[in-house]
């Protein structure tokens, strides 16, 4: 549904995303993992058009359609095509109700936003869609609650709900579980599993239990490069991946460092 070819983004001297070829298939759930600063969020920003790549291209294929180049699209254009994202830090409309948050997102897809002489009430279809989505993410009872007064867990659900509005084909979920307590995390995992049924999902997630549990596929970014991409088990056993996660620090070397560090004794 979406693929990148040689995608590269440089900030000054730093290469945040380095020559990434990646493709996400229909209704596939792929987890994107990697240490902090590996370039995951930059990758998302490139896919949605928030950032323009230094090199390479992004293409998108709607259901039953042909590939189109979306490299130079603006964020609102990729959104209208059907690529939606959620954010790592809750990023919704704070004083609007949960319902209005999703409704206004749904409205973006109907082409009615420029009808400034009509009352919003004249477009019940968006409200209906918003209510359905709120039900789906388990916020049906909180429709009239302002977003800023929801609990953190509920906000994370709303974050996904806003991304679901307008029936996207591709969902980019940036750490939906960030900061969610253990007792509430199961419901979010259920939600991720549920939305993956009818969307292509690219999930950034740090909790490996969840990654291993829900993913069809796992891709690993390290210092901007895609160093592994395959089924969860294979990736977990990949030597390069383990090294990446250990930050290149080999505990066996510590005897060299120990000479002047004086910590060797404690570790042994």
């Amino acid at each position, binding site marked *: 549904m979406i693929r990148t070819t040689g995608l590269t983004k440089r900030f000054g001297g730093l290469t945040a995303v380095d020559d990434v070829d990646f493709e996400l298939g229909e209704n596939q759930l792929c987890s994107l993992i990697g*240490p902090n*600063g590996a370039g995951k969020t930059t990758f998302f920003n490139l896919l949605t058009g928030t950032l323009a790549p230094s090199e390479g291209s992004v293409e998108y294929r709607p259901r039953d359609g042909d590939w189109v180049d979306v490299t130079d699209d603006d964020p609102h254009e990729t959104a209208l095509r059907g690529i939606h994202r959620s954010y790592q830090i809750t990023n919704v409309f704070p004083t609007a109700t949960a319902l209005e948050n999703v409704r206004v997102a749904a409205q973006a897809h109907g082409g009615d936003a420029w009808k400034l002489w009509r009352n919003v009430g004249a477009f019940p279809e968006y409200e209906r869609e918003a209510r359905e989505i709120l039900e789906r993410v388990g916020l049906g009872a909180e429709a009239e609650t302002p977003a800023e007064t929801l609990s953190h867990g509920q906000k994370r659900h709303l974050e996904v709900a806003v991304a679901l509005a307008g029936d996207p084909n591709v969902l980019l979920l940036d750490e939906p579980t960030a900061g969610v307590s253990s007792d509430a995390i199961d419901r979010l995992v259920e939600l991720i599993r549920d939305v993956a049924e009818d969307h292509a999902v690219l999930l950034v997630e*740090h909790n490996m239990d969840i990654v291993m549990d829900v993913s069809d596929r796992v891709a690993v970014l390290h210092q901007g490069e895609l160093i592994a991409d395959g089924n969860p088990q294979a990736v977990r056993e990949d030597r390069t991946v383990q090294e990446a996660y250990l930050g*290149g*620090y080999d*505990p066996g070397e510590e005897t060299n460092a120990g000479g002047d560090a*004086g910590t060797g004794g404690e570790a042994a």
Partner: protein
Amino acid sequence: MSGDPPALELDGVHSYYGESHVLRGVDLAVETGENVALVGRNGVGKTTTLRSILGLTPPREGTVRLHGEDVTGVETHEIARRGVGWVPEERRMFSHLSVEENLRVATPPDADVNARVEEALDAFPALRDHRTRDAGDLSGGQQQMVSIARALVGDNDLLLVDEPSEGLAPFIVKEVVDALGTLADDVTLLLVEQNFPMAMDLTDRFYLLDHGEVVESGQSGAVARDDETIRRYLSA
């Protein structure tokens, strides 16, 4: 146990980001001279713990004590003046200030500023050549050195070090580890690090944090080679 109170003690600390309940009753203690690691996955509250100690994210419940003295609710700069140094995530250089100025800012007003700066440059000779350069122009590893040196020029006996290896190339990580290792002998250290083996190497004891609570603690050496523990708690 000596009669002295611990250098740092957290007792049932609850902290929030806005409405988000991040720390759910953290208890930990670091004795004077001890080096302790705080480990856990991303987003479990490690950085927030350090911020709560410094009063940057003041705890809503619980107490933070420095050498037995309650500092909960005290202003950050007051806490810092009681000898707490911070080496934050992503280093946070004053990028438009020169290396030397970065160090001067951190020196207490009553200290001999020039002498302190020279001491710090002696400790990190690699920085000497760059003392007049803007800190923002340095490489990541050099910035990390400045960040550590900056925490040292104050009269600090407790260092809070957050993810020192993050985003650094492997050979630079080794340099940073060396630097921290040297330090570890002279000060009390609370180290947050995702790199589990490295954290274990540098410390005497560890606390494992999960969902805003300490779920396990023990001797660093005992688990340093224990792959099962690594897998179970860090899922790496």
